[in-house]
């Protein structure tokens, strides 16, 4: 499967008469975008804001971040199962408004939504302080239940991203990068001298606002399966969860999964990247055993020498991470794990809820309990008072002067376990 990704570099975002990309500037017709996003009987209102890097702007509570993309060649469309039918994606050509992002906000759904600061110390911890953000503030009709509220906002974000992505359909990309993974036997034969590697992609599926979707299917319902790495680049995997902001994978980061990108960067040079196994993080022991058994089986079936395993979330999924590690290592297949830590605000506690001596190669995305003070911003998009209740905040997190003192757990992507950021932790 071969996909060309054409990046159209976006350096600025502005409101304009027509939604279009011109000389690296994304112009947005505010009314049209609001109308597209609001196209759902369950939505009362949509407002659109712009937030650029370096501006004194805070957005909270952020639910999801989505990258505008458009399918220009090949089957299917972006976000299969939601915005298009369920045709197989991951081949042909896709254009990306690289540097732009849709950010969804609005009344809080759960407790685990996050903060994006566009400047100041908080901005250091989120990748979305560096993107040209089109913020969609979505308010649902009264009386809506949480899970439906989440769905409504999720879909509004996808509609907005697809609408903006269309602006890139006929624009000549600044950079075109081909990614290719061949059918398994062919791929295995392609680089006979190189070690074979797969990627075990754990998806958050604890349920009750902790869901992830693959072609529209709740991943909680699947048994682990094989995936071509290019599928994610067309939005095959989307976030539907309100896990702690720091280590949930926003839809944007799924589409840019850095593990897949970095494995592709070595593909044919130092390794032979055969593909991905996607698996879930369900809460019952039987589900955990079944999924880790199946994951280990598929990895063995592929006949690889080594895998990278990434976790999403923390606590309960630490058990899935450890099971996957144990069962794969016991087949003689080497593992590297990516996780983050909850070592307490002072860093003195045990970081994970489960442990295995076979997990001897771990990359950490940092201690999510670290406390940070984020000074007041000139503009707040959303509802600053939710700082008191979101995971990582506490009663009193929002100070009278508008500053926020909270754990970095509240910051979108701060300890992303796909390794999207540079944060790490060490013992002193």
């Amino acid at each position, binding site marked *: 499967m071969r996909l060309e990704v054409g990046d159209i570099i976006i350096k600025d975002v502005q409101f304009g008469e027509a939604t279009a990309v011109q000389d690296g500037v994304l112009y947005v017709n505010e009314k049209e975008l609001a109308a597209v996003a609001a196209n759902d009987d369950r939505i009362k209102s949509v407002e659109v804001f712009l937030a650029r890097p370096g501006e004194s702007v805070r957005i909270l509570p952020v639910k999801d971040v989505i990258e505008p993309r458009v399918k220009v060649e090949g089957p299917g469309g972006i976000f299969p199962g939601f915005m298009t039918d369920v045709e197989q994606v991951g081949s042909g050509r896709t254009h990306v408004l690289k540097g732009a992002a849709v950010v969804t906000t609005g009344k809080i759904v759960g407790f685990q939504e996050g903060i994006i600061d566009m400047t100041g110390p908080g901005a250091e911890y989120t990748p979305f302080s560096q993107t040209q953000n089109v913020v969609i503030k979505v308010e649902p009709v009264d009386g809506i239940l949480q899970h439906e509220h989440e769905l409504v906002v999720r879909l509004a974000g996808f509609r907005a991203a697809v609408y903006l992505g269309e602006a890139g359909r006929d624009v000549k990309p600044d950079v075109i990068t081909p990614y290719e993974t061949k059918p398994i036997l062919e791929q295995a034969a392609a680089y006979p001298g190189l070690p074979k590697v797969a990627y075990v992609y754990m998806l958050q599926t604890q349920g009750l606002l902790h869901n992830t979707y693959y072609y529209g299917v709740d991943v909680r319902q699947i048994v682990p399966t094989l995936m071509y790495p290019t599928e994610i680049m067309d939005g095959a995997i989307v976030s539907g969860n309100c896990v702690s902001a720091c280590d949930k994978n926003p839809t944007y980061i799924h589409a840019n999964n*850095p593990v897949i990108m*970095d494995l592709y960067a070595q593909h044919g040079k130092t390794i032979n990247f055969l593909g991905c196994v996607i698996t879930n993080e369900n809460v019952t022991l039987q589900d955990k055993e079944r999924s880790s058994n199946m994951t280990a089986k598929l990895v063995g079936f592929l006949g690889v020498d080594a895998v990278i395993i990434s976790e999403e979330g923390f606590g309960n999924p630490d058990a899935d991470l450890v099971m996957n590690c144990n069962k794969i290592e016991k087949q003689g297949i080497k593992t*590297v794990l*990516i996780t983050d830590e909850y070592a307490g605000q002072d860093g003195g506690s045990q970081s994970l809820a489960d442990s295995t001596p076979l997990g001897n190669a771990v990359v950490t995305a940092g201690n999510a309990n670290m406390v940070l003070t984020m000074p007041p911003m000139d503009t707040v998009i959303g509802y600053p008072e939710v700082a008191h209740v979101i995971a990582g905040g506490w009663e009193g997190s929002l100070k009278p002067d508008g500053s926020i003192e909270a754990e970095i757990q509240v910051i979108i992507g701060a300890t992303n376990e796909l390794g999207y950021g540079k944060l*790490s932790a060490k013992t*002193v």
Partner: protein
Amino acid sequence: MRIVHYINQFFAGYGGEEKADLVPEKRDGAVGPGAALNAALGGTGEIVGTVICGDSYFNENLEIATPEVLSMIKSFSPDMVIVGPGFNAGRYGMACGMVAKVVDEELKIPVVGGLYEENPGLEIYKRHGYFVPTGNNAGTMRKAVPDMAAIVKKIIAGEAVTEGFFEKGLRVNYFAEKRGSTRAVEMLLAKIAGEDFTTEYPMPVFDRVAPGPAIKDMSKARIALVSSGGPVPKGNPDRIESSSASKFGKYSLADVTHFTPDNGETAHGGYDPVYANLSLDRVLPVDVVKEMVAAGQIGSLHQYWYSTVGNGTAVASSKAFATEIAQELLRDDVDCVILTST
């Protein structure tokens, strides 16, 4: 830079165990090992005062002794505090550690100490100061002093202290040069190639013990009762601490057929003691075991029970207690142990 030194009764020249009840006192200038430390600092800093306390007094009166010692330290307006070295003296190490903790938390100034690697105070309090590794007894003072002075000098010079002390065990965030996924791929390549790599998070290793083989005939077995639930004779004669125990107790079961509010209680501070104190059999099942011995179902009951408090007690301390208890049980031909917690 003004430095205050904390030492125990022994190093102040009062004497050993017989003087361990010494109440806190303070003196101007250096006392005991402080003189050598002062000399090693070569004028870069000076010990302006010394606070002295008996090890027994400190550990058995933590709630009084700790603020007393802290306020004496504070009275010298220090920029830094040195504790010990405490070598492998358990109670001295615990006192040095506790002093480090309150100085760190309340005064927020650096603490330098010296402890032997197995001192129980180290595991519990190492996060609160720069503890230099020392030998296990005072005979190694001549090595400990320059090692401690080296760290003190670095702090005085405003240099980063990166080595020469036990890791504090604190996880601290930093921004790496490369993103996490790239670090993961590089680690994977090294692991595949069999090259050295360094995990960013050494997973904790739980000390899992395989259970011994089952005893087939209990009617011939000699069993013992051991507990971390704090069961002690009424009045807690050994003053086992309610949390972070520094010792275990050994008590006779010869005259006990079952417990009442008059002959037993729990020393444990981590759970509601009401029901344990009404009948300690709930924590240490002497009543049932003695009945089973009488009925011939169990061969015999070892005549002593061993007890400590698990609440807040460092794994290192628990291991030390268990090693000693296990050796006694083996010596006394015990076949198996009923180990109760809380």
